[in-house]
Every structure is written in C-alpha cells, then in structure tokens.
C-alpha cells in the first residue's frame, strides 16, 4: 500500500523531470514549435556542446565546488561549536546567547552596512566574503542544538566522570552520534552554497571567481523595462532559447544531485544501540 503511494509520487516527479531532460536534447526548432511533449524530438547534443563550450564554464564549476566545500566545512565546524554549549543544560550563558543568536535571525542592518563591513575587512573579491558571513546562521544553530539535546545526558555524564573536558566530550561522543545530523546539514549547506548567487554577485568583482550559479543567471534576462526603447534595445542583443535554459540547469544540477546518494548511508537508525547500558 505504502509502496503504491510512493510509486505515484515518484511518477509525478519523474515525468516533468524527464520532460526537462528531453528539452535539453531536442532540436530547438522542434521545441519552439511545441512538438516536444515528453520524449525528445530530433535528438541532438548541440545544446550541450554550446553550453559546455562556454569558456567560463570550467572555472565557474571549480569555483562553485570550492565555495561549496569550504563553506560547508566552515559552517559545520562553527555551527557545531556554537550549538553544543547551548545544548548543555547547565551552561550559564545558555539563555542570553540563544537570544543573541535569535535576534540575528530576524534583524539585520541590510546590504549596505554588511557590504561596508566586508569591504573594511578587506574581504571583497575573496573566498571569505562568500563563506564567512553565512557560516553561523541562527537557524542552523537551533537545529544542531535540538539534535545535540536529544543525546542522552547519561552518556555525557559518564564521560565527565571519566575526567573528559567539554571539547573532548564533543569530539569523541557527541559528534560520532550526530552523523545523520551532520550529513543532513552538510547537504543543506552544500546545496545552499552551490545555488547561492547573491553573495558572489555583490562581493566579487573579478569574474574569474564567479560560481556557476552566477554564470547561469547571465543566461536568463528577467526584467521590467521602463520604456519600450530599452526593451527594443535588449531584444536585439539577446536570444534566449528554451533548450539552452534546460541544458544549463541540468548541467548545474548534476554535481550537487550526486552528493545525496553518498550521504544516504548515514541515515540508518540504531546508531545509539548499545551505547547506554543499564
């Protein structure tokens, strides 16, 4: 019964996805004539050739990978370090720190002051501008904290009796038991960084440092123009085809899509079986 429900869900999802794949390998003329409904028409790899030949593609792929990996690492490390103390119920500064963090979730100074801070730190045009500001987000801290809190205190207390300091407890006991959490948050963090175009947009001048997400944004112009003349001008400067859009989207999706299957092995239950006796 459940399998049937899930099967329906899978079909509902696969159909549009395969449609997009078909678009990317069909002849552009056939696509614009509306002949492609599900299967490719006049199979061609020209669109992919066009997309993959763009000189900026290779470097932007590498940039995206660098940002995603370093950003995820720093996010997981820093968020965890921030969240663990908040999950220790006896921590004296627990409540004030939580409130300090919650405030940042809703209030921010805005683009301009943040930009000035980054500028004054000399981070413009560097990796740090991309990964540092978002390294510790309130939302993530709360999620980590929730997970850490669910680990039985008995485990922690037995380590304290054995003479372990806080950092050692964190490293040797809490983290190994938090594999599903780390896996999930790494995935979310990596995906977020991979798709993120906003920080690279405003902090990077040197476009050899552009990530893929920004490159893709150049392929689609989506604007309201205040006068017809501007519209006319832009019309003659750009030709947007649907097949290119589909192909570029798929080319960008592929690497990050492949991360999840690797992480799925961490989602097995029974991680804590046998860790607490009596």
């Amino acid at each position: 019964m459940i399998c049937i429900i899930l099967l329906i869900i899978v079909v509902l999802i696969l159909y549009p996805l395969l449609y997009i794949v078909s678009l990317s390998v069909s002849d552009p003329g056939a696509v614009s004539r509306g002949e492609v409904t599900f299967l490719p028409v006049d199979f061609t790899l020209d669109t992919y050739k066009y997309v993959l030949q763009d000189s900026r593609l290779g470097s932007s792929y590498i940039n995206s990978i660098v940002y995603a990996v370093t950003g995820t690492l720093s996010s997981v490390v820093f968020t965890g370090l921030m969240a663990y103390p908040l999950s220790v119920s006896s921590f004296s500064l627990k409540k004030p720190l939580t409130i300090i963090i919650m405030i940042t979730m809703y209030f921010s100074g805005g683009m301009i002051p943040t930009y000035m801070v980054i500028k004054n730190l000399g981070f413009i045009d560097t990796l740090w501008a991309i990964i540092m500001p978002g390294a510790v987000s309130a939302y993530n801290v709360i999620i980590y904290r929730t997970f850490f809190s669910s680990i039985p205190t008995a485990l922690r207390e037995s380590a304290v009796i054995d003479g372990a300091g806080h950092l050692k407890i964190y490293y040797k006991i809490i983290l190994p038991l938090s594999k599903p959490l780390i896996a999930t948050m790494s995935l979310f963090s990596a995906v977020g960084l991979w798709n993120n175009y906003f920080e690279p947009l405003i902090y990077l001048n040197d476009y050899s440092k552009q990530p893929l997400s920004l490159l893709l944004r150049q392929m689609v112009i989506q604007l309201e123009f205040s006068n017809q003349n501007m519209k006319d001008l832009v019309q003659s400067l750009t030709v947007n085809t649907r097949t290119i859009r589909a192909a570029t989207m798929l080319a960008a999706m592929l690497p990050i899509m492949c991360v999840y299957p690797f992480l799925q092995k961490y989602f097995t239950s029974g991680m804590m079986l046998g860790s607490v006796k009596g």
Partner: protein
Amino acid sequence: MKNRIKRITSLLLAIIMIVSLAACNGSNKEDTNSKKQDPGTESSIQEVTNTIEDEENSAVPITFPLDEQITITAIVRDFNRDRTKYIDKLFEQYTNIKIEWTIVPVTDYNTVLNLRLNSGEFPDLIQINKNTVNTFADQGLFVNLADYLDQMPNLQKWIDKIPSIYNDSVTEEGDMYSITTFNTRGQVPRQPIYREDLFKAEGLEAPATIDELYNSLVILKEKYPNSLPIINRWGSGNLIGHVANLYHTKAGIYLDNDTLEYTYGQVTDNFKAAIATLQKFYVAGLIDPEFATISDEQFFERILNGTALYMFAEYTNRMNTESQGDWNGNGKINNPAFNLEVMKPVDTEIGNGLLSVQYPTSRGGFTIAVNSKSAYINEIVALLDYQYTDEIIELVNWGLEGETFKVVDGEKQWLIDAEERKNLGLDSRSGMWVAIDQDCFDSTLDPIDLKTVRTSNANLTNYAFYEPKKTLSFTAEELDRISQVMTPIDTFYSEQIISFITGKLNMESDWDDFIRTITDMGYQEILDLYREKYNNLPEEQKGLDMSIGL
C-alpha cells in the same frame, strides 16, 4: 579568578572595539577605485603640475593610443559575454587603456550598481540610467560632462545629427552628469503581422481599418474554431499599449501627438474607445484568453503551430531571419502554405493607426557616467569621445576591413559567418557601450526582413507615434512622490482594465466610476508636475522628436 575574568573580558571588548572601529571608518576612507601606483609625494606634485598644465593648455587634445598605458575600472551589464575576445584586445590596443571590467548579470545590474553607489565606492566608468544619476547628481558623485563638451568633438557631431542625445542627457540647469547611449540610427522594428496565407484563402485582403480587421477575424474564427486570432505576450500592458497607439493614445503620462500637451492616457476618450474595441474583440472570441499571462515559449508555439492569426506589433525580423527565430521557416515545416506577412497598422475612427518606433537613443534608460573621484577624468572623457569616432564604431561593429568585412559598392558585407563573429566578439558590445551600428545589425537579417524594415523606415511618417524631444528629469524627491501616488493608481488601473477587456465590467455603466476612482486617487498632482516641467523647458527642447536619425 576575578583577574582572569577581567582580563578575558577586556580582551574581548578590545577585539570588538577594534573591529567596529574598522567598520565605522569605512565612510571616511578614501576611495581607491583607479588602480594608480602608490602616490608618493613626488607623483602628487607631478599630478598637480599636470593639472595646471592641462588648464593652461586646455586645447591640447589627448590622442589615442595613449603614450603611457593606464588602467581604469568599469562596471557593465554582461549581456552574456566576457571581455577577452579578439575585438576587445584590439580595442585595448587602439586606446592603450587597460580596462578592468566588473561584469554583472543584466537581471541584477541595478541591485549591484545601487549598492556600490550607496556605499560610496564605484568604478571610474559606469553604465547607469538617468533617474539614478539625477538622484545622486547633487552630491557630486559624477563628472559634469557639460564642462567637457568642447573637448568632445565627435560627440558633438552625433549630437548635431541626433539632438536627443544631448536633450536626454542634460538636466534643467544645463548640467550633464551622464551621456545617454545610442544606436547610429533608429528604426521601425515592430509592425502588425498576420497569416497572409489564411487571409488569402478566404479571399480577404490585409485589413486597412479596425472594422475590417474585426470582420476578417470573425470569418476566420468561424472557419478555424480552435484558433486564437489575436495573441499577445509580455502581459496585458503590451496589448493595451499597441491598441491604444492605434487610437493615438497610450497608458500612463505621455506627450500627446496631436495636442502637444502632457496627458494621462487612461482618462481620455480615445483610451476609452481603445478599451471598448478590445472588449468587442475579446467577447467575440477573437483574443487569446491567456493574453495576459502566457510566456514567450507559449507565444512562439502558438504562432508556429498555426493557432495565432494576427499580432498587433511584433518584431518583423523574427519572420524570416534564422538568428531571430525564423517563424516562416519553422512554420512551413509542418504546413508548407504557412506565410506570415507584415501590414501597416489599421486605421480607426480617430485617424490613421499609429505605432511606436525605436529611437536611436535609449532615452535615458541606459547612460554612461564618469566617477568624479577618478584619477583619469581627462583620459576617460577623451576615451568616451574616441568611442564616437567612425573608426571605433566600425571596429566594434564590423571589425577590420579585409579581415572580417569588405566594402562592395559603398556597402559593407561580411566575410565571416555568425559563429565566427561570436567567437571574435563582433557583437557591438566591446568598449563602454560604443554606438551600435544599425546598418550592421540589419546586414545580419534575411533579405525579406531587411526589405520589410527598410520599407517601414521609409514610411514612418505615416504611422509613427512620436516621443517628446526631451525625456523629463526628476529629482529623488519627485521620483519618490511619483512612486507614492502612481503605484496604487497603476495597480488599481491594471487590475480593473482586465475586467473591462474580458467584459466583466461594462463600458457604459462602469467606466465613469472607474475614471472617478482614478481621479480621486490623485493622478492630477503628478500630471501637473509633468506639465510644469515641460512648460519650463527651453523652446528648442519642446515638442515631438520626429527624426529618428535616419
């Protein structure tokens, strides 16, 4: 114990203070946007001497290529290409100026530019628009190019040919903080397009009046019940705009072609007539029910699979030119008789049908400005002027004679194909928005489309809906006030008008209430503002711009 707490606390405080000081100092720091060498006292003296010299010999022109290479920074929209192509390198050679480009996706350009401007730091040379320039002008952020006009003979030549370049760039006080970008001439890119083969099959000629159009489409709709005779893209505003033009009006505040007064279109009788016509067509099933919502893809599909029979105004170069979509070519694949053709706008009881034309300038929508704190103002001004010379325009649009094009009987012809042109960067985008050669663009068109646009251009006086000679300038406060008053009015109007078109609201009984509501919302204040500004213009800037630089 106490000491440890104190020590660590003070250390923390110190760190916080240092970092905040660094951040707050930002607004006082000097901008370092031109990549000059470290200015020791010697070179500063050198600079000063140079300036004095320049002032004394203000007549000494800067020639290109420069003796010493300089590096400047610039920010541009990307339009999907980098700046490392062959033509870009040639451009650098010709000028001996190395430009460090910041390239921003078109969709986000204004976000990034506004952020840079508001943070007080931006490159030497920027693409911007007139409204933003006016917002910042009184703060001295941009160079007043009016002071340098006598050093820009090539720009002067273009201004003589196309006066609106000057008119649209200059403020009421005669200051010019940015130059509007332009093509070498305007054109009539859009015209009504119809399925000539289907009309002919029913023995119908291209309709000359709106009533003939109605009757023809009724006949065709009967024969082809599944067709959507009139289709439209880019939302309801587009369709309304085209039909309103036929009735000598348009939505919003504009300069009326007949009365030469600024008018708010929605409240005129002509506009009411236009909407009544649209309602008549819609209720008869002659307009695509999804006219307000379809995407570009759906639009093209409906043309190519034969559902659509008529468009009020579409780009004529899409009909046969491969790079622009080749509608006829694609349509013929499944239907050999498929044939789209151009016709002139239909006439109405108001007079002959008008349609909007493409002016050579962007009318302030895209402009170029120079950072007043730049270290190379004279060079940059000279560079801008150099961009208006025939050599550079030819270089950026056509390339090199003998290499990329040849001249046959006074006409330029390509020696390379489209693919090669793209690889070399021959797409008119090198430099800082060098004037786009309209003839060059036309040369890429299919001969039929070329003939179409040339005929349209030649006949434009019959049906052009003209723009004013000068696009009005507004200060930041005025723009805010306009937003505040007009955004709710536009929201209300655009919602209600759809109900009128679809027939939900009645033209006779509901229209007057509609107008009354709009009037109560206070458009008159903004209209008066426009009128006042227009009346204060010098005589030579008043009136319609009837030349499009042809």
